[in-house]
């Protein structure tokens, strides 16, 4: 019997044979452009990269780029940049453009030199959204912790074909028995780390197959830049913490002018000194350092004194973005690139290739945004000083 099984196993191994093949002709050198102009006074980041044909037989060289290679036009008129300083990592060149774009501006970008086909793209700066109201209610999920349900209403009904994004920042104050404030604030990836949070629905485990999966799609955005797991090294930007997760929304995900989502904001504060577990994605340490669990030389420092966590207060800040259609498609593609891995095997549609750059790669897409003030959680409770006996018991439990 063993011989038969061995024969079958060898047969299967022989079956899954490798067939190298040449696909030299599928590409030629291109410019990669990422330019996401926004309405307002913000500087817009520019990323330009030389993209070599993947199957070129000669090793790719490093190239220079300067302001002379980069042209921006607003409503058909060239914008003369005051001063653009370019920094680079490999063939990825970064700069920023100071300029005040206004909603409705038609922004065109052209990148050219004498060895790569000129790449061009254009976009329109969308009208910024306006938040009319934000309602926060208490909503229990079925995983054993209470959460918050947010209803964000815009000042008008969302029309078909409009695209939005939403981002939420959670600010927490932790109180210890010493009543010292620590840390004063903390910005975390709440939407991504709350694994059973699905904006638009109150999700339970039993909803997993009915989820509106578009509601999951998110990218990390900061003014003028995107970052995704797949493009991390290309961007050469290690400051991930400066990016916020932006959940992508198509018009069909709004109910008239309102969009509701759920946030599992409540976590066990007793975990604070062990590193708060936000669902597996983030391992936050109180001293604001990220710990590599595989680092064999890491030795946790002994705390000098014991602090007893006794409560917390929360605030929320909500940002609503309006995205041009091309930017939405690009962001969605960036998201799917990370998560639809089956497409690599040719068994699902490939949906990670979006670009609106003619003769090039990347995105030129307009965005505009509005932001709420910091909103205190309506269910915040003022922490109370426990008795000495209770403190001792809590200390023992640590």
């Amino acid at each position, binding site marked *: 019997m063993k011989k038969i099984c061995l024969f079958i196993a060898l047969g299967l191994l022989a079956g899954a044979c490798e067939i190298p093949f040449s696909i030299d002709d599928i590409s030629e050198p291109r410019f990669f452009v990422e330019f996401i102009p926004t309405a307002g006074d913000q500087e817009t980041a520019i990323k330009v990269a030389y993209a070599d044909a993947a199957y070129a037989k000669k090793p790719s060289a490093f190239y220079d780029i300067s302001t002379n290679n980069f042209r921006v036009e607003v409503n058909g008129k060239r914008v003369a940049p005051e001063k653009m300083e370019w920094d680079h990592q*490999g063939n990825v060149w970064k700069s920023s453009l100071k300029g005040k774009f206004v909603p409705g501006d038609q922004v065109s970008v052209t990148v050219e030199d004498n060895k790569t086909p000129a790449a061009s793209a254009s976009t329109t700066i969308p009208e910024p959204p306006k938040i009319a109201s934000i309602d926060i209610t208490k909503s229990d999920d079925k995983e054993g912790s209470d959460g918050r349900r947010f209803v964000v209403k815009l000042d008008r009904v969302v029309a078909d074909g409009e695209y939005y994004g939403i981002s939420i920042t959670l600010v927490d104050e932790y109180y210890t028995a010493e009543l010292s404030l620590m840390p004063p604030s903390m910005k975390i990836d709440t939407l991504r780390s709350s694994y059973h949070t699905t904006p638009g629905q109150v999700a339970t485990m*039993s909803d997993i197959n009915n989820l509106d999966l578009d509601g999951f799609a998110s990218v990390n955005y900061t003014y003028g830049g995107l970052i995704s797991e797949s493009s991390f090294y290309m961007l050469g930007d290690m400051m991930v913490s400066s990016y916020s997760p932006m959940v992508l929304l198509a018009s069909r995900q709004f109910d008239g002018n309102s969009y509701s989502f759920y946030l599992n904001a409540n976590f066990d504060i007793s975990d604070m000194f062990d590193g708060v577990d936000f669902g597996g994605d983030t391992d936050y340490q109180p001293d604001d350092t990220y710990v590599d669990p595989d680092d064999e030389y890491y030795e946790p420092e002994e705390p000098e004194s014991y602090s007893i966590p006794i409560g917390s207060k929360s605030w929320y800040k909500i940002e609503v973005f309006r995205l041009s259609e091309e930017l939405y498609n690009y962001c969605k593609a960036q998201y799917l690139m990370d998560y639809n891995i089956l497409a690599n095997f040719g068994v699902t*549609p490939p949906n990670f290739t979006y670009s609106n750059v003619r003769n090039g790669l990347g995105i030129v897409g307009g965005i505009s945004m509005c932001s709420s003030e910091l909103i205190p959680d309506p269910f915040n409770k003022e922490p109370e000083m426990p008795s000495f006996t209770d403190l001792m018991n809590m200390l023992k439990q640590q």
Partner: protein
Amino acid sequence: MFAQEVEKRDTLDTSYVTAVKEKMRNTTQTGLMRLDGNKLRTTVAAFGTPDLIKSLQMLPGVAAGNELMSGLYVHGGDGNDNLFLLDGVPLYNVAHFGGFFSSFNTDMVENLDFYKSGFPARFGGRLSSVVDVETSEGNMKEYHGNFSLGLIDGRLQVEGPIVMEKTSFNIGLRRSWMDVITVPALLYVNHENGGNPKASGGYAMWDMNARVTHKFSKDSKLNACFYWGRDDLKAGIKEVDSESFMDIGLRTNWGSLTSSVAWEAKYGPKVNGKLMAYFTRSDSDVGYTFDVGSVKEKKEDSMLYFSDDEICDVNDTGIKYDLNWYPNSSNHVRAGASVAMHNYATGRKYEQKGTLFELFDETDGKDKTDNAAPTGEKYLAWEPAVYLEDEIFLAYNFTLNAGVRMALFGTSRKTWPSIEPRAALKWLITNDICAKLSYTRMGQFIHMVSAMYIDLPTNSWMPSTPEAGPMVSDQVAGGLYFTPGNFKINVEGWYKTMEGMLAYNGANAFYPPLVNWEKSFTSGSGKSYGLELETTYSIPNKLELSAYYTLSWSWRQFDAYYMFPFLDRNDNRHKVNLVGNWNFAEGWFMSFNWSWHTGNRITMPSHIIRTGDDYSTSVYESPFNAKLPDYHRLDISLDRKWVLFNGNIIHFNLSVYNVYNHMNASFAMLDKDENGNYRGMAYGLIPIIPTLSVGYKF
């Protein structure tokens, strides 16, 4: 020869009708192929079982998609836009076991008409093709049957009279043996593991066709047809130690059922009609269980138990009437009306229980047990349709088939009309040469919710919604057809556009969401054009050699994927098929098929950006930008028959799939060669597959 291929057999023969049919030799349809059951049963079989859809895959203008699957991508279509009719009843689920076998039992097939263009007005509801399969009526005088046993399945077909020369039956059964084969494998694995963990599982598929025919008179008869096919897949593993246990199980079953009653009658020398009532159903249930708990004194205490079932059903009930009228020798009028009620239901049943949940209950006083009743959504849609077509014999050997089909599709949210003109013109230049031209518009109101290119039970049909409306195609086809001597040479070209196509744009590939499903799809368009060449040389009852060649382009435009048109995954630029059947000696029969086509397309990273001395990242420029290596394989089948002393026949069949063991690419990934240069690396999975089957015909 032409007449055999292009004119479907009329059920009621009369001298008048025969005379008219003689005049109607060489009907006007382009893109029509007729295959009879005998021919289907002699094609090369991958697992010893002849397969109707795989026979169609060999034809020009058709792409097969993934190897060994039941894909049928006709003239640039999407594979879910083919109308399969089994005895006139739409069949939704046309394949078993992830597409490895089609649902059609070839023992039961009398003939099939395969339309790729020039669709007559009597057909509608799908964009790309019509596969009209008719099962055989049972023998009215004698009992006959056929039993065969292949590598992975067995088939039994029996027919005969119920009332001599009045009523007959014909029944066909198929069942796979794979669950039987897996039993010893599981026994061995469990034996090697000492029974812990214990694996279980198996797969079985079966189907049954039945047809009862009753003749009231020579001008009137009744047919009752029935089909029922099921697939059942189970897998599980259970591990137990002295303190705990874990039990994980997967269960999936799916299938189809069709039933119909049709009354055919001749109302006079020039008119006959057919009234049919039918029901068709497709359903699937994909579920799993997860159970962990403690073991005390050999007693298992479930602490955490989940059970989840995803259910999807389509139920159609319909009635239709078709009329044939021969008002004079220059006209053949067809008219008809139908109405169908579609019921689409999606749902899920979820259950969780166990002592761990009860512990939560005690902790915070909340009920954490979720024994949800089945939930889901139901959609009801009505689809009335009428059609009228007239085959008109004009002067100078011209024939025109002009018609129109009008349909409505109404749901609670919206009603869509569809007006579909059809026209075909034929010019009989000489007795051996004719030219044809056709234009058709086709509408499709239903969509397949599928995230993968593989036939999975999680694929489900849904009606159009305001966000995902009907699909429409327009196709122009034309060709020249020669029949010199024993040769038949056809050259056809087509140009086709498709609007309202859908493509999945979400991340959950295995379970595309069924509630608000349209939110995860993006719409786009397609375009296809090409040229087909078909050459056949035949010596009746002795030899038939066919060569098919297709030159085609298939484009897609989905703005959410890419802002420019891109080539489709199944854009096989060149396709060649050589098919032969040779009755080379008494009792010996050989057939072969050699297939070659330009490789399917796949999406590969197109650019590399250097981000440092030793770092780089890859970028995708466009979908399906790379071509897999060319596909080719040879299949050979050898059949030996002996006639026994009692007149019965015993036959052996040896089929070899992929004779020269060419590993064709199934998928590909990015790779580096020994010099560090990027290249594609494809992976082939399907080796040579020899199969032996034995049969007994009585």
